[in-house]
């Protein structure tokens, strides 16, 4: 059985259900659980659910410490950029401890961070910064595009014995979708084919999955069959599913809201260029944000971002189609 809830509620549902199953799960962060009416506070009490000061270094560092001491902390960070003030705690502490201790220590923590709020949030609150973490050994990076994946990936994130960065897309927050009832886990490192197709493989993450699906719809009207793949986690990255698709389609377009050289798209393209070169009938095309900060004003903001039309155009170019209007 399934129920229909918004993406953001699906994340909360997974956290709540895991807290019910495992009392080692802690949930804390800023501006949450400040009043006794808070549902998490009511259900799980003030020892496991806490509001923290604006102190990301301490919040993430304490999660690391509590994780080493046997708990499974979930840190609510709201906007992804806020964890940058604690960059050391994210990339150079907990993520290294399992390795440096030859497996003696584990750091099972989840950092929940929203990203990509390209809706007038301007230069410092709109980043798509996940790409910079996918190369950090010891870190896992999940980025769901649907409510069901949001729930399933959060369940897996909490159960994982490694630090997990859980990046949810702000523009998807209220998007509704079917979510399985009860226990539901989506494994890490397993891409999902969001739409099957035979002419071109389009790989996309987060909100761009929806742009890619819209583009696939437009392309279908023009007789082009696009397969849309969502890796769902970029660390680990399911290269095999992408290679299998490219082996059938011969064409690859990779979409990413991040700036080109900081994108997961560039890494995916490199993997396919090396391992799937013989399948490719045309150069891989990247549809990413332009290498610019995000502006406040709408026309300047949308100009630098990937969208449905840019994906349609890139597919057309890859397939050598005559430029299509619109």
């Amino acid at each position, binding site marked *: 059985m399934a129920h229909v809830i918004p993406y953001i509620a699906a994340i909360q549902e997974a956290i709540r259900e895991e807290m019910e199953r495992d009392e080692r799960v802690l949930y804390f962060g800023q*501006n949450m659980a400040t009043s006794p009416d808070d549902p998490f506070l009511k259900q799980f009490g003030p020892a496991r659910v806490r509001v923290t000061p*604006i102190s990301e270094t301490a919040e993430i560092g304490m999660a690391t410490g509590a994780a080493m001491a046997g708990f499974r902390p979930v840190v609510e960070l709201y906007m992804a950029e806020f964890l940058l003030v604690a960059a050391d705690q994210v990339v150079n502490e907990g993520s290294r401890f399992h390795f440096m201790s030859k497996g003696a220590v584990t750091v099972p923590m989840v950092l929940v961070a929203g990203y990509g709020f390209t809706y007038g949030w301007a230069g410092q609150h709109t980043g798509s910064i996940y790409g910079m973490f996918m190369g950090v050994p010891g870190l896992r990076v999940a980025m769901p595009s649907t409510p069901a994946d949001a729930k399933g990936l959060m369940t897996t994130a909490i159960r994982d014995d490694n630090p997990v960065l859980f990046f949810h897309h702000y523009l998807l927050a209220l998007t509704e979708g079917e979510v399985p009832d009860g226990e539901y886990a989506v494994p890490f490192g397993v891409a999902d084919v969001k739409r099957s197709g035979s002419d071109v493989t389009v790989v996309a993450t987060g909100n761009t999955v929806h742009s890619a699906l819209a583009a696939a719809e437009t392309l279908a009207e023009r007789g082009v069959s696009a397969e849309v793949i969502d890796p769902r986690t970029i660390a680990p990255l399911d290269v095999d599913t992408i290679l299998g698709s490219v082996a059938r389609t011969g064409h690859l377009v990779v979409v990413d809201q991040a700036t080109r050289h900081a994108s997961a798209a560039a890494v995916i393209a490199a993997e396919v260029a090396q391992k799937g070169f013989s399948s490719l009938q045309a150069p891989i095309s990247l549809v990413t944000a332009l290498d610019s900060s995000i*502006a406040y004003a709408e026309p*300047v903001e949308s100009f630098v971002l990937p969208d449905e039309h840019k994906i349609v155009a890139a597919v057309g170019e890859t397939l050598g189609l005559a430029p299509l209007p619109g």
Partner: protein
Amino acid sequence: MATGYPTDDGALEAPAPERLVWMYTQMYRIREFEERVKSTFTAHPGVIRGHTHLADGAEGSIVGSIAALAPGDQILTSYRCHGYPIALGTDTKAMMAEIYGRSTGLCGGLGGSMHLFDPARGFLGGSGIVAQHLPHAAGAAWAAQIRGAGQAVVCFFGDGASKQGAFHESLNIASLWKLPVVYVMENNHYQASTRSDQEDANAAAGEPLAVKATAYSMVGITVDGTDPVAVHATVAAALARARAGEGPTLVESLVYRLSAHGNLIAPPGVPLHYPEHEAVAIFGNQAEYEAALRGDPVPRFRHRLVTDGVLDALDADALEATVREEIDEAERFALESPLPAPDSGLAYVYA
């Protein structure tokens, strides 16, 4: 109330009557400007995007501080940054146009409400990441120290910001290097929807937040931030010490923000508006909020100036009418201005 070291603010002259009227005018301009920003959410839905933070309730603190500056001084602020440039003389038309995301905006629509900059008037900008501008202020103060021309820097931030490492690192180095900087913490008792006593060890212990200065062997003072004259005296004394090479000061300015932290945070499709203040919306504390409204520093300062015979009531009405015309004009200008060209940002990625 003073903590840390005693100050010598008794030695400072109180502002002259014309200066007091100037201060009231600036407070009223800030209030009217921000009321217009707020009403834009309902009058012109969709014109303001993203997140906008108002300083209503802090006008006395802002203007009292800015009034203490000398030419060549510089300021840095958080995202709650509309009031300071207004008092510094930045064109309100360009400011409103920036908040409306227009090409005629102060930053061409690239920055928006949280990121106003006007370096020509000494405003080095508003930062959106809590407390990260505190080290920038120390750096600007170091530059002033090297220049040796007696200039100083004032850095404005919230109570919540004092929970960041950047706050503590900056105060330590500023005190160690005797940097000419005044750190003005506008303590409005909330960081978004968290009360100070829920996140601050000093507040929970019933102490003023100014005691944090003691840890860095610098002066820490708490002042009534709703009283622009008191703020002026305190910040002027702190600036005098800074210019004299006696190092930084932490001024805790007690204010109450009269609006919610910011407009509603919502994805596309949901109309933005200003929700109720967190005291009411989260904590059900109507009494606290109403008391703050009764203490509104803008009408209070007007009343004081009129009662003291500094400002004639009719003159006050007249200056307020002039300000409203200015803000009408700012709104009209911003609404009529074009949106920026889509590729207009690319020229500014690199210097």
